[in-house]
């Protein structure tokens, strides 16, 4: 009897590993964390913040090119999201919902800031010097080969700040953060055609601004 119980327990364990209930999807995990956070469980909301803080911060930083502003805005985004948790109905993913809050807050901030942009750039990580794309860009074939990565970084951010907010956003979400046109359309609440046309126009503008560094 003991052996049968052992066999059944091994079979039970085996079924969990081989064909048991599938692990919950990230979206389902988010919904569970949202449910617990609504009940006042701060630990659950802490988990949600940790899941998306880097992506949200990156989006805001690339839009503002200022670390201090991005820090303020990312915190305000998550605070507002917590206060609005009860209004989150689950029609979109929590990820998309928080992104929308972040984008709206950032665009409102940029409208107030208008022409007073002040760059406060983050440092480049150590991998930048070894990135093959960047190595190719500063190779001896480029006329500005003496331009270091720091200068490239500054010129790139200046060029990004010359774009309009909506054009900068599509470049940030697609070309920098690798989102699909569909995801971007949901976040920006527009159709995919609008995303594509803004992306095309933004790239043309950037090529004009950075022509010296792209030849």
């Amino acid at each position, binding site marked *: 009897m003991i052996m049968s119980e052992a066999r059944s327990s091994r079979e039970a364990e085996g079924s969990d590993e081989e064909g048991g209930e599938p692990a919950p999807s990230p979206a389902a995990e988010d919904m569970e964390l949202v449910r617990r956070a609504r009940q006042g469980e*701060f630990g659950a*909301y*802490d988990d949600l*913040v*940790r899941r998306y*803080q*880097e992506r949200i*911060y990156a989006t805001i*930083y*690339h839009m503002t090119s200022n*670390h201090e502003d*991005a*820090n303020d805005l*990312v*915190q*305000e*985004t*998550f*605070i*507002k999201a*917590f*206060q609005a948790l009860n209004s989150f109905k689950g029609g979109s993913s929590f990820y998309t919902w928080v992104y929308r809050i972040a984008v709206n807050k950032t665009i409102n901030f940029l*409208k*107030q800031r*208008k022409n007073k942009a002040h760059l406060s*750039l*983050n*440092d*480049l*990580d150590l*991998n*930048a010097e070894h*990135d093959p*794309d*960047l190595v*190719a*860009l500063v190779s001896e074939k480029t006329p500005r080969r003496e331009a270091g*990565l720091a200068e*490239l*970084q500054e010129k*790139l951010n200046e060029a*990004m700040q010359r774009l309009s907010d909506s054009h900068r956003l599509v*470049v*940030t979400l697609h*070309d*920098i953060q690798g989102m699909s046109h569909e995801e971007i359309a949901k976040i920006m609440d527009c159709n995919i055609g609008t995303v594509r046309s803004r992306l095309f126009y933004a*790239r043309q503008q*950037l*090529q004009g601004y*950075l*022509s010296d*560094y*792209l*030849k």
Partner: protein
Amino acid sequence: MERDEQNFGNLQRLLVLKRHETPPPGYFDNLSREVIVRIKAGDRGESPGLVETLSWEATWFGRLWTALEARPALAALCGVAVCGLLVSGLVYSESAGDSPAGIAVFMAPEVGTGLKVASESAPLPTNPLLTPVGAQMAPSSTGGLMPASTQAGSLFNYRPALNVQPASHSTGPGQ
């Protein structure tokens, strides 16, 4: 065409640089904790201000402010208009106050009242500064001298009419 494609390819390579921009070390370790602390402290997540606490966004003033904020040229025009109204109001009030009639009306009752009280309580000496040079003095009914009233003119020619009496006092018997 090929050049455009090459430039676009180089642009995409350049944009990769943005992915290497990272915040200071340990930044994300503390971010969630700071957010939770602010939530527990009741932070509304927006920059507080007097305007926010008064819930101004729901008022007509809030809507007007929002509209002006989005249109700085319109806000500038409104500011110029308000300043213009203020300046014109000040100029008008000063010009109304500068008129002699205004001064006479403004000053005469008080001057007359003050001097009248003084002359009744104690004899006042004639103050040459209060009478124009060359002004004619006329005897008053009480025996003193009273300068002829001057006609209305500039502020510097105006002199209030005074009932001036020479200092005198009657002495009682034995003094």
